[in-house]
């Protein structure tokens, strides 16, 4: 349908409301592109939480103590919860839950490519908590002020719950780093493998991020990829020093003039490869999610059938 005058005036009113920092709520009129961008972004975020259960879930049975096992279980359970808050936020825009699951397992919607890296050692659980959750929190704190109300509210809840995720990772690595030589080496190896992928989590550089301008204008995104990445680096360097672990970047150094840490170039070709489906675990992550969906089908159907039968009994009585 060609745009009409009324579409134009509604678009204008929408932008003015955004400029005045008015939150967009589900029943408000919104441009179709705002709606589809929001659905794609929230769904991708939800899928990331759900797929993100796998790399760490992998270590639950092998956690080295009951304390660590209980912590890891709670963390993975939180990720399930965060996925569900986000799916519910996406659904307020008119997309169905089953539809979102299908889009994920048929590869038509993406999740964060960080979860396509394998968790090779116990120290990876620490590195994920410290670096991956640290990067996620940096991104999510900025999103608590995003323009779409249900998404912003989910972010507030998630940020409140996630601070323990990063702290448990830091504590885990701290114990390993100060443990035996072998434990220290295992911690360093995990940090070496997770540092660069964590920096890639903020997405391509601003100069190569074509959607950023529109997302900033709609206040979906409040802070650019490069600025968030810099925040994360500045925050993390002193933490690495406290852990007595090195960050694998010879160019990392404080820049007095900028008031920030400089860091070396990111291998964006690796990023493109992993996003494009060629990471170590892409196929496995989707296969596991698909199997869970298929294995759970009978439960969804049985619960449905039970409810239908209960209803028919009630109405017959």
């Amino acid at each position, binding site marked *: 349908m060609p745009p009409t005058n009324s579409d134009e005036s509604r678009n204008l009113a929408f932008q003015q409301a955004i400029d005045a920092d008015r939150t967009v709520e589900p029943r408000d009129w919104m441009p179709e592109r705002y709606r589809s961008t929001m659905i794609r972004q929230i769904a991708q975020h939800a899928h990331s939480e759900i797929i993100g259960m796998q790399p760490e879930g992998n270590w639950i049975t092998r956690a080295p103590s009951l304390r660590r096992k209980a912590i890891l279980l709670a963390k993975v359970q939180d990720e399930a919860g965060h996925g569900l808050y986000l799916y519910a936020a996406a659904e307020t825009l008119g997309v169905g839950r089953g539809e979102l699951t299908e889009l994920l397992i*048929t590869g038509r919607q993406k999740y964060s490519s960080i979860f396509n890296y394998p968790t090779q050692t116990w120290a990876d659980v620490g590195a994920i908590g410290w670096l991956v959750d640290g990067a996620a929190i940096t991104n999510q704190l900025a999103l608590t002020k995003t323009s779409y109300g249900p998404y912003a509210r989910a972010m507030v809840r998630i940020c409140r719950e996630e601070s323990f995720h990063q702290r448990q990772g830091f504590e885990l690595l701290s114990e390993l780093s100060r443990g035996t030589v072998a434990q220290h080496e295992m911690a360093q190896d995990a940090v070496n493998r997770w540092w660069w992928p964590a920096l890639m989590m903020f997405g391509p550089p601003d100069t190569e991020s074509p959607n950023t301008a529109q997302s900033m204008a709609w206040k979906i995104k409040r802070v650019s990829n490069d600025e968030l990445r810099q925040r994360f680096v500045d925050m993390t360097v002193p933490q690495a020093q406290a852990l007595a672990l090195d960050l694998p970047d010879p160019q990392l150094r404080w820049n007095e003039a900028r008031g920030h840490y400089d860091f070396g170039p990111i291998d964006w070709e690796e990023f493109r490869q992993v996003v494009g489906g060629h990471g170590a675990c892409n196929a496995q992550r989707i296969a596991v999610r698909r199997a869970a969906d298929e294995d759970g089908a009978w439960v969804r159907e049985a619960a*449905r059938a039970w409810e239908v039968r209960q209803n028919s009994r009630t109405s017959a009585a």
Partner: protein
Amino acid sequence: MGGPAEQPDFRSVSHAEDWPLWEVFIRGRRGLSHQHVGSLHAPDPELALQNARDLYTRRGEGVSIWVVRSTEVHASDPDDQGPLFDPPSDKAYRHPTFYTVPEDLQL
């Protein structure tokens, strides 16, 4: 791996219909009213309560839960916000600050 044409149609198998949507309200502690915290899917009220417990009270956030089928919530139209809520704005005399009283009195 096959292309899209060879993918099984999951919608017809297991996602033919989502479980109904429920709105979840939680009383944070005794003495407070229930507040809306979010929504979830469940086939019946009993499972909706169980799921709400798992999803929204993992850190002792509540002492009581209400679940309401989302289809049972009737909402005002956001486009009516003006006409619906404007009338009281010219009735300043409904607020205590409208009245002038001696400043040295407790009133």
